[in-house]
């Protein structure tokens, strides 16, 4: 049996290659996120000072919705021809699959964010008063929080009827503390205030939820 990390790598590479080959998902997600930014900027037309106050919320709400759409596709490929069953009858450990999916989603959602952020900055004339590297840290931590939970709940909603709608129903309530932390951290940093507390909160949220998801994933995967 090859090492779990080997399987994770193989799965991740496979996903990335397929994603790259079809490019459909990428292109449409990029276009989608562009649209979200545009829709937001049509809906809210704030002055520079106001925009700094609401930018944290705007950005993260946009990210959240884009991420939900992306995460809903996570397992689509695996259940198309019930390939997941092929994984389940193989000796490969469940968590390798989970980690591969989380990493894949993380890369994908990060790419989206990397694209949307400059647009937001331009449209809303944002300038950070605090250190920008902290913003990066918050983005990474926040995205990880969304993606870990999202991947887990997407797997869970595979086992339910009306799958697409189930993901936000499960994800949103549990992500509220993380979302709040991201928004507050971003706003604080933009306004040049300290965001220490929020970052620590995010780190511990990430740690706790990653651990628990890893512990529970096998159970969820093998629930028929």
């Amino acid at each position, binding site marked *: 049996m090859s090492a779990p990390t080997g399987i994770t790598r193989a799965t991740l590479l496979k996903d990335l290659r397929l994603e790259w080959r079809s490019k459909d998902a990428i292109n449409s997600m990029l276009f989608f996120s562009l649209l979200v930014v545009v829709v937001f900027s049509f809906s809210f037309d704030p002055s520079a000072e106001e925009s700094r106050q609401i930018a944290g919320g705007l950005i993260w709400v946009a990210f959240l919705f884009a991420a939900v759409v992306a995460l809903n596709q996570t397992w689509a490929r695996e259940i198309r021809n019930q390939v997941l069953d092929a994984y389940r009858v193989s000796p490969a450990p469940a968590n390798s699959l989970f980690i591969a999916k989380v990493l894949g989603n993380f890369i994908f959602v990060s790419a989206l964010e990397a694209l949307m952020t400059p647009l937001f900055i331009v449209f809303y004339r944002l300038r950070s008063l605090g250190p920008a590297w902290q913003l990066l840290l918050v983005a990474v931590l926040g995205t990880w929080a969304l993606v870990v*939970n999202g991947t*887990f709940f997407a797997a*869970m909603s595979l*086992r*339910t*009827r*009306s799958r697409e709608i*189930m993901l936000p*129903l*499960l994800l*949103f*309530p*549990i992500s*509220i*503390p*993380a979302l*709040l*932390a991201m928004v*507050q951290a971003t706003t604080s940093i933009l306004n040049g205030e300290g965001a220490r507390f929020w970052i620590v*909160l995010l780190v*511990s*949220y990430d740690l*706790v*939820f990653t651990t*628990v*998801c890893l512990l*529970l994933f096998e*159970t*969820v995967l093998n*629930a*028929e």
Partner: protein
Amino acid sequence: MKRAFPILGIVTAILLSYALCMALMPVTHIWIFTVGAPTEQTMGNVQRIFYYHVPSAWTAFILFFVNFAASVVYLIRRRPAADIVALVSAEVGVVFCTVVLITGPIWARPVWGIWWTWDVRLTSTLVLWLIYVSYLFLRRFSSSGQTPTLAAALAVLGALCVPFVYLSIRFFRTQHPQPVIGGGGSIDPRMLHVLLINWLAFSCFAYLVCWSRYRLEKLQRDVDEAHALESLLDPRGSVR
């Protein structure tokens, strides 16, 4: 065991009606007994909603905790009974939590002049309610035979979320009164007395509802099992 149920039912009914009298009547002396609760000076009679608001909140919290414990037990031991307990406590807990979320704004409107404010206590109650409603949704929508497992996993994640909720909304300014017990708030001992009576009544009531619901669910599953057994014996493999 069979006897305990009606006894508990009667006790609960007595407690509830006694508590109702206590809560709604101004202080009156009847012979050597004193019944009723003092009317709050600033808020007036509106304050009496307090005796429903607070016990409901405490009861809901206890039930959510039971849900968490039962889910963990289920994940480890896989006992169907644990699953039923988890389901039942979540259902009843959501009901009590809903009562809090309804009585709160009703109280807030005359007292604060607004229906809702983003305050620690209010917000965390709302998030808690959301989490457990989504738990019930999962249970309802799950199409697999493994609903209990999925639900237990979600319950654990949901319970873990609670401390984060408290931490993350700590900065919200507080308009809501401080906890009576263990907090900075102070309360008329007479009011406290009525409150505790009400709480006792509510707890008994919750326990009673949970118990009936537990038995109902248990019976339902037994019936299903009997049907399944019947279908095992039936030559065509299916009932009806």
